[in-house]
């Protein structure tokens, strides 16, 4: 092992550093495509909350309200306009009877579907990022400590992690959500639950790297120079074991989005009126034959987002592997 990222032949110098990695990702068309999708989804997620124009769309039929005003309206149903004004189950613009007012149509309450998809991106991205961040932080800390010290510390930590790992993720998250939320599920508990459920994979990935990195001479040299264990783990072990974790994290974001969508579909994730793709699928599946578009749009959104993260993750993996040089 010559460097962080793997085996190298004699005389071959590894290219390291962020600049090189990013340049490689840029040169990889599929990774770039994935990055575009992530960029679009992320900016949509951010702008759907702040852009006045888009927030008007959110209201669909109630385009006189902004989001800030719209949510209180829902909380006090008596202030709702009479049902006659709501155009429920509008088809998308290209189908018969569709209009540009609601490009993707409207849902069972007459709300604009495009704006709900866009708003749903915000939930999904937040869930993906935060849940993965939680799992990564916890997993890296546990895995690095277990791998570095070995012995009984390793045994205790890894057995604990394997207990979590042995429970199916969705079951774990549902049980966690129900218990912690005390019967009022919300997306925040889903994030926590998914974070905990992903700790095992991260800790196992980093531990396997740490086992080889801790044998490196520079770690021995740091110990011989009197560096504390904490700083050795923080400054020498983790940075040199991080590449595979980073790759896995990008893939994991997609998985987190998927699992929270599943959770919302089952009613344990985001609660109405907060739009979430999984929850939208739940509301739509009864309408599958009559209004198929209602199921297709959230599905497409989930598919594209996860595909984006997966493509980017694959590209990143290649970019971090010095044996593959574009």
């Amino acid at each position, binding site marked *: 092992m010559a460097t962080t990222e793997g085996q190298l032949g004699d005389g071959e110098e590894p290219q390291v550093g962020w600049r090189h990695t990013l340049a490689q990702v840029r040169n990889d068309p599929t990774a770039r495509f994935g990055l575009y999708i992530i960029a679009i989804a992320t900016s949509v997620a951010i702008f759907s909350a702040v852009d006045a124009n888009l927030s008007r769309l959110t209201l669909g039929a109630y385009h006189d309200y902004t989001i800030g005003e719209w949510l209180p309206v829902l909380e006090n149903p008596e202030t709702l306009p009479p049902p006659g004004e709501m155009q429920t189950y509008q088809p998308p613009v290209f189908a018969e009877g569709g209009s540009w007012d609601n490009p993707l149509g409207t849902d069972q309450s007459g709300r604009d579907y495009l704006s709900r998809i866009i708003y749903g991106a915000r939930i999904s991205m937040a869930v993906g990022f935060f849940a993965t961040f939680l799992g990564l932080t916890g997993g890296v800390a546990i895995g690095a400590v277990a791998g570095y010290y070995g012995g009984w510390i390793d045994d205790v930590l890894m057995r604990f992690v394997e207990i979590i790992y042995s429970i199916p993720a969705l079951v774990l998250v549902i049980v966690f959500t129900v218990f912690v939320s005390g019967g009022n599920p919300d997306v925040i508990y889903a994030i926590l639950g998914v974070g905990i459920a992903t700790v095992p994979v991260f800790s196992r990935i980093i531990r396997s790297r740490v086992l080889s990195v801790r044998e490196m*001479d520079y770690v021995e040299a740091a110990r011989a120079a009197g560096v504390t264990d904490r700083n050795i783990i923080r400054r020498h072990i983790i940075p040199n074991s991080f590449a595979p974790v980073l790759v896995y994290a990008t893939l994991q974001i997609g998985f987190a989005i998927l699992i929270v969508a599943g959770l919302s579909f089952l009613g344990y994730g985001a609660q109405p009126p907060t739009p979430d793709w999984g929850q939208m699928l739940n509301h739509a599946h009864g309408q599958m034959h009559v209004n198929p578009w209602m199921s297709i749009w959230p599905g497409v959104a989930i598919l594209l987002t996860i595909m984006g993260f997966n493509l980017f993750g694959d590209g990143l993996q290649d970019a971090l592997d010095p044996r593959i040089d574009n």
Partner: protein
Amino acid sequence: MSNETILEVDGLKTHFYTEQGVVRAVDGVSFDVREREIVGIVGESGAGKSVATTSILRLIEEPGQIVDGEITYRDLTIVGFEEQDDGTLTPREAMLSNREMRDQVRGNEIAIIFQDPMESLNPVYSVGHQVTEFIELNRELSGGDARQEAIDMLREVGIPEPENRFDDYPHEFSGGMRQRVLIAMALGCRPTLIIADEPTTALDVTVEGQILDLVKDLQTKYGTSFIWVTHDMGIVAEICDRVNVMYLGEIVEQGPVDDIFHDTKHPYTQKLLESIPRPDRTVTELDPIAGTMPSAINPPRACRFHTRCPDARVACTEVEPRFVAVGNDADGDGDEHEGEHNDHRTACIKYDDVGYWDSVPLEKVGDRDIQYVGDRS
């Protein structure tokens, strides 16, 4: 050499408890290091050289364990045992805790330079960062001062334009340059003693020569003592003041470098010297030591070298050799065994009065269970 002794290793035993059995990697090793001198530890691969030196910093990892012996650095007890009533050995009260080892000894008193310069630098940090880290850790310097000191140290070890190379990463340096960086890191801690664990083995001969010259210069300038671990008698001759020859976990001969080379006593040292080319002697064919080193799990009885020794006699398999002074008769009183007055000592019963010369020689070396590698004709 009238300099004060700074490090004393006495009867050190470091064993590894593996599933195959107890590996007696270091089995009763004693030597000392004085101020401003370079002490060599020389021996074949697997002789226990590195284990002996890492024991000094107490960096032995599981399943290894220091089981006996004393290591004293100045007035600090790095390793020390006391015997309990039931005969077991337990660490003495005075022995430094792991925390004290870390804060008081490692780096700031005793630093170490490792063999492979390719792997001894962290690939994710610039070399300047790494030198600075060690300086900040072990000296009262920080921030800009530490940075400046790091640049000075890099210049000191011969890195051209250290200001510009400060932010370069290890992979942008050649092997020799990286080894210079490692020396800068060790020396930057301003230790009293540097353990150099085969630091030039991975380098080519030209670079090795440059590094040796550099170390000699810096050693004179900073007055640092060195323990120089190597398997190369040539390096020993070039830079060491005193030498310890190790074989299978034991020191078989020790003394000033001149005595070892010109008045070689132990058969192993003799064979070791015969197996390297020397410009001062005309040799048509080098004579390697027959066979390979036996396992340290079940080392040969009595003298551990008797299985490969050309001079072995039956007594060698029966009598545990002890150190005897074999130095020249320095004060001219006719007594060649001057004990404490002479540094040159060897653990071979040829020089002891325990019946070697009355004993029957073992058969020729080749007839014993020794494997030859390749054709020796």
